[in-house]
């Protein structure tokens, strides 16, 4: 073999304020130890400004090809392309290898970054180094999240006769969709669409439903993942509980109902909602008197089936799966963060999700729209006896399209606000309803028509973001600018509904780190490719579905869940999973 061609390496890495970044110094010293490698510099020490300097360096060191590494090396590519030409080299011998592309962002990824740089120096692309996962292929699939996306994906996979573990954090599946009253734009009853699917999950022989479970750790490679799961104590035996409800009747403990978004109270031993799956009771350890004080145990005494076990503890379960579908969904923006709207301070400023429960026939008021009342113990809840509001205002874009909170558009708020306006009009035909919006984004099939329909129902549309809400004589006063009529609007209403945006779950990044998939700067999981791989990720065998990947409505979530299921079934039919570049790096690093 003749002389090895000398390779120059330049690392362009902007840390962007992140403390936990890959160790550039370590990578540099590693690369300089490789045969035939010359380190040209590192943008932190030597910013690329002097073309003449680099040209001279390339000539002196007899460099034949150049590798730009770092988190955004593309930024300096034009600069070095020019340097190459000046040095008399072919500018196509310039190789750009980005750490960012493989999600090598944390300190723990330093080893992987070295591997990546090594394969670039060797002149092999990472994908060609190997093909499939090791350790045998497991046909079972894990679906994380029991919302509509998780349900859809599980059913698709289970119906193709493969086994599915469906993991759910709360006591029932259904997710946010189960809380909704109607869906837009068809105004179907959300529960009527969802509950048959939930029942199907509960009865499916191929689906193992695991409620009150959280992922603790994920190891292994595509086709053979080992997942450690924390199963929280339900304290009610699923197999023996007959769901009679006597325990709940007698239980003295009370807490705000999560399912009803804290608009009403539930017992400490409860069933989240009548159609819950599994339709069994569970104990809330926060409010249970026995668990707090050690004496009570009424539920144990009254249970005819002997299903209550108050001393049950959390346990860890380990399962092995071949594919993972992530469908963890979203959380609504916490309107308390924006103090101007007085959410939490004024009783009749409610979020859209609270209002969904209020307007729902199975909600706290039986579907009557009422103002908040205070019960004997001082809990501010909604009851059917409350006063009926004469005027309601809906405010769009709370927490969305605002650089102070989330700069993205949450995509669904305009449409659900229109839907809520319609539901109010239906129940309160004489009420004054106003929508304060920045832009109405009715973007889908039948959506614009829906908007037209709502406009004809006598609802005021005021273009202008509401800036603040104040209390005035027991009413809520909104202050806004009407941009169309060029006026300042000060309207007093009985009730204000805040159209809160969607945001990633607080622990989404934690899960992303466990799975080794990236999130974007907001915290949404990053898809494989924005246009042509909406369900895949940079890891093989891990798919994303639903709102955990970005704000979207129910039809889109369902479509994406089916697509994710298709990719899982493809992997199962192939009985092997093609490794992605990142999987390769992980594999190479282990050797």
């Amino acid at each position: 073999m003749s002389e090895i061609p000398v390779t120059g390496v330049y690392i362009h890495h902007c840390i962007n304020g992140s403390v936990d970044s890959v160790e550039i110094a370590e990578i540099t010293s590693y690369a300089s130890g490789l045969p035939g490698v010359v380190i040209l510099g590192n943008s932190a020490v030597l910013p690329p400004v002097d073309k003449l300097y680099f040209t001279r360096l390339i000539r002196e060191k007899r460099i034949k090809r150049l590798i730009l590494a770092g988190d955004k090396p593309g930024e300096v590519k034009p600069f070095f392309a020019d340097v190459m030409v000046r040095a008399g080299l072919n500018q196509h011998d310039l190789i750009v290898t980005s750490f960012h592309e493989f999600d090598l962002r944390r300190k723990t990824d330093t080893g992987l970054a070295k591997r990546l740089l090594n394969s670039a120096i060797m002149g092999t692309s990472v994908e060609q180094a190997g093909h499939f996962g090791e350790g045998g292929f497991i046909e079972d699939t894990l679906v994380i999240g029991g919302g509509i996306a998780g349900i859809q994906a599980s059913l698709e996979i289970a119906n193709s006769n493969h086994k599915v573990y469906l993991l759910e954090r709360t006591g029932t599946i259904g997710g946010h969709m189960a809380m909704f009253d109607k869906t837009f734009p068809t105004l179907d009853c959300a529960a009527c669409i969802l509950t048959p699917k939930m029942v199907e999950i509960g009865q499916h022989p191929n689906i193992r439903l695991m409620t009150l479970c959280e992922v603790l750790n994920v190891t292994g490679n595509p086709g053979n993942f080992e997942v450690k799961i924390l199963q929280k104590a339900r304290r009610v035996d699923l197999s023996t509980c007959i769901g009679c409800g006597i325990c709940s009747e007698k239980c003295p403990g009370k807490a705000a109902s999560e399912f009803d978004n804290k608009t009403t109270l539930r017992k400490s031993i409860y069933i989240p909602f009548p159609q819950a799956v599994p339709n069994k009771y569970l104990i809330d350890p926060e409010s249970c008197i026995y668990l707090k004080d050690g004496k009570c145990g009424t539920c144990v005494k009254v249970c005819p089936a002997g299903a209550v076990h108050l001393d049950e503890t959390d346990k860890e379960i380990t399962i092995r799966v071949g594919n993972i579908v992530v469908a963890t969904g979203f959380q609504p923006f916490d309107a308390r963060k924006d103090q101007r709207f007085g959410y939490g301070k004024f009783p009749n400023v409610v979020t859209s999700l609270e209002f969904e429960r209020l307007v729902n026939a199975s909600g706290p008021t039986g579907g009557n729209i009422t103002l908040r009342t205070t019960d004997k113990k001082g809990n501010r809840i909604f009851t059917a006896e409350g006063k009926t509001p004469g005027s309601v205002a809906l405010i769009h874009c709370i927490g969305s399209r605002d650089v102070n909170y989330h700069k993205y558009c949450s995509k669904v708020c305009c449409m659900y606000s229109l839907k809520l306006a319609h539901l109010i009009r239906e129940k309160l035909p004489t009420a004054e309803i106003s929508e304060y919006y920045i832009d109405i984004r009715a973007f889908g099939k039948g959506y614009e028509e829906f908007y037209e329909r709502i406009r004809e129902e006598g609802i005021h549309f005021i273009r202008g973001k509401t800036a603040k809400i104040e209390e005035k004589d027991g009413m809520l006063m909104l202050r806004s600018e009407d941009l169309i009529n060029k006026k300042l609007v000060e309207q007093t209403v009985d009730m204000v509904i805040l159209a809160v945006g969607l945001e990633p779950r607080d622990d989404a990044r934690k899960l992303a780190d466990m799975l080794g998939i990236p999130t974007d700067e907001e915290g949404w999981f990053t898809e494989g490719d924005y246009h042509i791989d909406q369900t895949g990720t940079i890891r093989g065998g891990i798919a994303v579905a639903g709102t955990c990947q970005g704000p979207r409505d129910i039809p889109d979530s369902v479509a994406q869940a089916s697509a994710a299921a298709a990719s899982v079934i493809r992997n199962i039919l192939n009985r092997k999973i093609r490794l992605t570049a990142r999987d390769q790096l992980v594999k190479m690093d282990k050797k």
Partner: protein
Amino acid sequence: MSKRVDPDFKRRLFKYGGSKEWNECFHCGNCTAVCPLTEQGFLFPRKSIRDIQMGLKDNLLSYTDPWLCYYCGECSETCPRNANPGELMMTLRRYLTSMYDITGLSRRFYTSKWWEFGYIAIIFVMIILAFLIFLPLRPDAAAMINDSGGVMINNLVAGMSPETFVRIIELGDWTMAVIVASLLIMNILHMFKVTILNDSSTKVPFVSYFSEFRQLFLHFLTQAKFSKCEDKKYWVGHFLLMTGYSIMFALIVAVLPKFQIEDIVPWYNWQRLLGYYATIGILFFLVNVAIGRIRKIDIKLRFSHSTDWLFIIMLGLTTISGILVHIFRITGLPVLTYYSYVAHMAILVPMVLVEVPFSKWSHLAYRPFAIYFTRLKKAAVARQFEPELAPTL
């Protein structure tokens, strides 16, 4: 009347302010609604942003809106696009000051540091030369100590009786005041022309000119609108500065012979008490604002134009030199008293001549007049078609 679009207007405006972000605005109307000072028909800051983006310069000139804003910063803090509408209002005030000014000097001062510093330097040198040539220090100045051990300040100049010296200084002060006042009056007439006469949409009822006139004095003296902003500390600071400076101005112009006297009066005499109040008021404001601008503690102090700093520095130097004159005088150091007196005058005169008619301080006239004109416009609108917009007294 047809309206002319000036596509380059936006870019020209960049020179007047520290922030360019207002171009991010997507017109949600948050700023207008969050502002405690907006009124029906005067929808600032958003309306102004619209006109800038569309290049409607003539529209903007006819607005009094920027002067109705006291920059509490609420709009900038809550803006969903970080467009800094509050800073835009500040930028527009600078721009309007330069547009009202008929001499054209204000525009040069705001857009070119050379012009501004050159102008100040020329006046500075002129004052010093005038003192050294016409009012030199007398050779036996060191002996000019009175019975109580203080300096006889009016006896420090060679070949001149104390009465003549005071009269010369008084004459100079009055000349300065007259120059500044006449410039301001001309500018306000020009402002009247562009905001009321050129605005074809308003026909002011004649009687309103008189019925609204008292508003002018009310707002000139109290800045009542400023006190409506949520954060009251700026209003307090401004009030201290305003009263402090007004007192000082009255002392050195109207009653100079009674203020600049030979004897050192006890500390509780009115001259000294007023002087101390003014000094503390001005210093309190200056120190707070300077620290705020350096540390950028508040949104309204985050973007500093060069003229903001020039104002702080010149007023600071004036105050310090004034304090030095006072200290040297009461401790009996005649020579130092003379030189600090010269320095005081050499800083004070250019400051007044640049700030009051052409720069930051012109707002002392523009703000109350803008409120007056705003009420005239409202009266006009009320008479024309919308009675509910009539001003409430």
